[in-house]
């Protein structure tokens, strides 16, 4: 980091600094994963108006997810600086010092996992596993080595919903695993679409991706298959938690939209369809989580 950027960093007003910290947590992505955790908890039909537990779950999960995101950004700052999409991030642009980012990530992670462990050993273990898979296995170990690293990123992303359900039930059941699979299969629609859209960026940063390793055709087919599997898993999980027939019907309709786009991306690929599937998949997952929550309420 240059002396100039260090000086600039020290001179930053506190509000600006907090804004940088906030952006480091990727609030939208963290928020969506938090929503899956809350939905997982509520899917267990536990007393959902237990505000203490709900707040504890929300806070511990958000801290852990945000912490792992910040640690990832700290580890990947050199890659981010090479990619046009990410080079304006506070970590790669020098707006926040490396040491500061590392401290922030560690503090958030320790607080999140510590709080989770205090709430329940199993819950804490799953939250820790999510953080470990994301930071150590995905980012530190595999991301620069193999395109398959996204599987571990996906497993990590599936942990909040499993953790939430495990906290509600006190144990892991098949529905929790299916819900986690739903999220796991949903994640490639995001990551692979990004890797197609920003293929050159990833190539510049020497990060192996599905498009660079296996080509666009295989990548699109993978997105299509994982979308189908995500939809199947969510419907099966909905059935498993005893979702009312009308809600299942609605979930089926939303899944049909996902399948339709998966077919379109396979047989009539275009950037517009890619983008459509990417956006629709986010809406789908959010809608599925809302359905789980409304159903229980």
């Amino acid at each position, binding site marked *: 980091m240059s002396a100039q950027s260090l000086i600039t960093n020290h001179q930053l007003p506190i509000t600006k600094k907090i804004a940088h910290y906030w952006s480091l947590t990727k609030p939208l992505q963290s928020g969506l994963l938090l929503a899956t955790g809350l939905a997982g908890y509520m899917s267990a039909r536990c007393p959902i108006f237990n505000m203490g537990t709900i707040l504890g779950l929300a806070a511990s999960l958000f801290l852990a997810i945000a912490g792992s995101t910040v640690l990832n950004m700290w580890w990947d700052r050199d890659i981010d600086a090479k990619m046009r999409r990410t080079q304006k991030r506070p970590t790669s642009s020098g707006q926040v010092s490396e040491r500061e980012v590392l401290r922030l990530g560690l503090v958030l992670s320790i607080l999140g996992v510590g709080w989770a462990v205090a709430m329940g050993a199993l819950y804490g273990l799953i939250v820790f596993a999510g953080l470990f898979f994301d930071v150590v296995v995905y980012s530190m170990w595999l991301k620069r080595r193999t395109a398959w690293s996204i599987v571990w990123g996906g497993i990590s992303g599936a942990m909040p919903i499993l953790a939430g359900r495990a906290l509600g039930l006190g144990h892991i059941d098949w529905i929790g695993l299916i819900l986690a699979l739903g999220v796991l299969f949903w994640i490639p629609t995001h990551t692979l679409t990004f890797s197609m859209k920003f293929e050159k960026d990833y190539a510049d940063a020497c990060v192996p991706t599905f498009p660079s390793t296996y080509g666009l055709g295989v990548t699109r087919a993978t997105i299509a298959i994982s979308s189908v599997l995500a939809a199947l898993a969510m419907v099966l999980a909905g059935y498993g938690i005893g979702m009312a027939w*009308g809600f299942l019907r609605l979930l089926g309709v*939303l899944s049909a939209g996902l399948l339709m786009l998966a077919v379109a991306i396979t047989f009539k690929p275009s950037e517009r369809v890619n983008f459509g599937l990417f956006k*629709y998949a986010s809406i789908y997952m959010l809608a599925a989580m809302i359905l789980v929550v409304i159903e229980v309420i």
Partner: protein
Amino acid sequence: MPGFGITTMKMSPLDRVLLLLTGILAAYQIAVGMDGFSTFPILAYTISFGVLLIAGLLLIIWGFDVLDSPMVVIVSTIIPLSLSMGLAWQHLASFRTSYLVFAIVGFLAVTLTRSIPTPDKIQTIVLTLVHGIAGMTIFLLPILLALQGKTQPAFALVGVGGALIGIGGLLLSFLKAGKPILSRETIFKALPGLLLLMTICFVAGFKFG
């Protein structure tokens, strides 16, 4: 704009809100608005409101450009056909089979005339016939049933929704057929509001009728 030689029309935040509300209402109808119906009408209404829901979401995601897709004619046919099929099944017991045949043949006819090279005149006749019959069924049947006292008066709202969907469907279909009744910009400007109003009429008609 591909196929029209006109520049892209941007979707405003208000348009997106209107479409989102349309989607939420359609979702509500699918999830809880059909309680007590028998299997076939549920299937038919699920198709119509499901297509409406997904079409609304895709419109939000892709903007009005998606309306340039050749699929629009087919999609804008599914909604009135399946909705009218559900109504006919529920309220015109003696016409169930014949209406089912009409719905299937009508859908295939629209799809085929859009998929293989067909003279414009035949495309237009098929489209007008299918939309006309389906639209009139949705428009007239609920109003007649309400007037005859066979349903609650509010069921007539489904007929009002039918009129609106008929207008929307015809505007879009003729636009796609290259014979626009109104300008492209006017249609796109009115579409989100029209879709929401139509869905409100359907949902309220089914709930209170």
